[in-house]
């Protein structure tokens, strides 16, 4: 005992053995983390799921004041052909009244930076907990701001799809989209 380089109880200066213990433990920890990673990452979207990345929609048949719903990445996308009144209402809202301030213009600009105020293209998923808001079909409740209304927990969106009232924290999301011609839009 008295001659041992590693006194019982591990008191005193760190020894070579202490160093080896810590180094081995640290390496083992890294090994376990590296092994855990593929198991965790395995649950992320697969290549074929990621490949369903874009859809092309012909918007020519949509009359002024009408809206359609298309499916993109398993989610509804709202495409509304807005009336001049819709556009005016959206543009005249002061930023100070918006929980998530964003100009109407910024929400109708495609990825080539071209602004088309008559076309509002948004992911039709409430930013609260993911329900599909009402208001895209004729006769549905558009809510107090005349845009969309989510019946799940009462979020109301305006004619620009911006959140105005209720628990949703942000505006309806604008997906990446590009008008390939005046009638054809690619989403995603």
């Amino acid at each position: 005992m008295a001659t041992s380089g590693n006194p019982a109880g591990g008191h005193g200066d760190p020894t070579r053995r202490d160093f080896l213990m810590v180094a081995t433990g640290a390496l083992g920890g890294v090994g376990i983390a590296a092994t855990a990673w593929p198991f965790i990452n395995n649950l992320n979207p697969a290549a074929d799921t990621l490949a369903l990345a874009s859809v092309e929609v012909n918007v020519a048949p949509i009359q002024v004041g009408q809206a359609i719903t298309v499916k993109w990445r398993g989610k509804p996308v709202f495409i509304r052909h807005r009336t001049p009144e819709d556009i005016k209402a959206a543009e005249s809202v002061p930023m100070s009244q918006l929980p998530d301030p964003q100009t109407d213009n910024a929400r109708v600009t495609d990825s080539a930076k071209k602004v088309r105020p008559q076309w509002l293209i948004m992911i039709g998923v409430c930013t609260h907990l993911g329900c599909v808001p009402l208001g895209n079909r004729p006769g549905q409740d558009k809510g107090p701001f005349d845009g969309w209304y989510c019946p799940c927990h009462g979020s109301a969106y305006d004619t620009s799809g911006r959140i105005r009232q209720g628990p949703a924290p942000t505006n309806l999301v604008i997906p990446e989209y590009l008008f390939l011609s005046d009638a054809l839009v690619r989403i995603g």
Partner: protein
Amino acid sequence: MASSHGTPPVFNNKVISWIDHRLPIFSYIEKEYHTFPTPRNFNYFWNFGAIATVMLVLMIATGVVLATNYTPHVLMAFDSVERIDRDVPQGWLMRDLHMNGASFFFIAVYIHIFRGMYYGSYKAPRELLWILGVVIFLLMMATAFMGYVLPWGQMSFWGATVITNLFSAIPVVGDSIVTWLWGGFSVDNPTLNRFFALHYLLPFVIVAVVALHVVALHVHGSNNPLGIDPKGPQDTVPFHPYYTMKDGFGVVVFLIVFAGFAFFAPDYMGHPDNYVPANPLVTPEHIVPEWYFLPYYAILRAVPDKLGGVIAMFGAIAVLFVLPWLDTSRVRSASFRPIYKWFMLVLVVDVIVLGFCGANPPAGFWIPLSQVATLYYFFHFLVLLPILGKIERPLPLPPSIADAVLKNKAG
């Protein structure tokens, strides 16, 4: 066979004694379920642990049989469940038992939890026993949530969407977590497939935690309605035949009520919208979870902020983990706590009120009501319990269980 406490059992059967010498399972059963000294004064609230265990076994038995006919694919899941209901021999029975079994499992566990709270069973030295119980409760909620997604009806789909979206409230990484949970960009086939795998797995994890729960229970033995420790053989009876019989009786009564629902009103506790196939483009007018989640759903909606609501909802369960340290009173049973007793009953009413709030649309007076009820829930655990233990004057405790029981008989 051994007859009295303490002596190691002697088995007359040669085979049993040969096995037991090598793997002492018979000694274990003898010690833990036969001679095990158990307080002599249990009331019927003490039946619900055994009842919950029977329900767990029933869920696994019916679930494994259902899984042999179920198809976890978005295009086939709904139809495969309809086929189980209509075409598979006794498929309707398996499904009705499984569907209603989930509800009755929660009924048993809620009563079991109430028992623990009313009689102070979470207090020293049973804190870990209690915490393991809360772990079981959480695992049950995860299992039932994922099971409800499997039939792929409208409520399945939208319930899954709303609940998984709760995680998007987490700052910075929330959206990546939700994508990871889904295995895609919305609740879709990868989600259904993994939920089925996990729904099959988790019940067996529950079995393992139940085993730990029972091991912890048998270290110090059961609490009892008086909340005082047994002081000797006069305070206890052997578990068998006394409590095997009493538990058996309780299980049978419970199963009669359960069978009544499963056979005569199998959809009473369900929601008609779940017989409409899932449609990712249309949300039902009014989404509600299964009844056993309604109080938590009400707490979620009571807070007018996304992250705040999610924190409150998880917090409502988190407080249960620290309950043994929030309650500062050293007296276990509410029978000897004249003030706590009433507040405990108020809490029960509060949770039921929350349940009604969760079932109704978030409009009108339901909003303030759910807010008041949510505040009261947290007030009970975080303010009332710590203070009450300090100011309440408990009634005098009886000298022993036998003493109290025999006096009751005489009087």
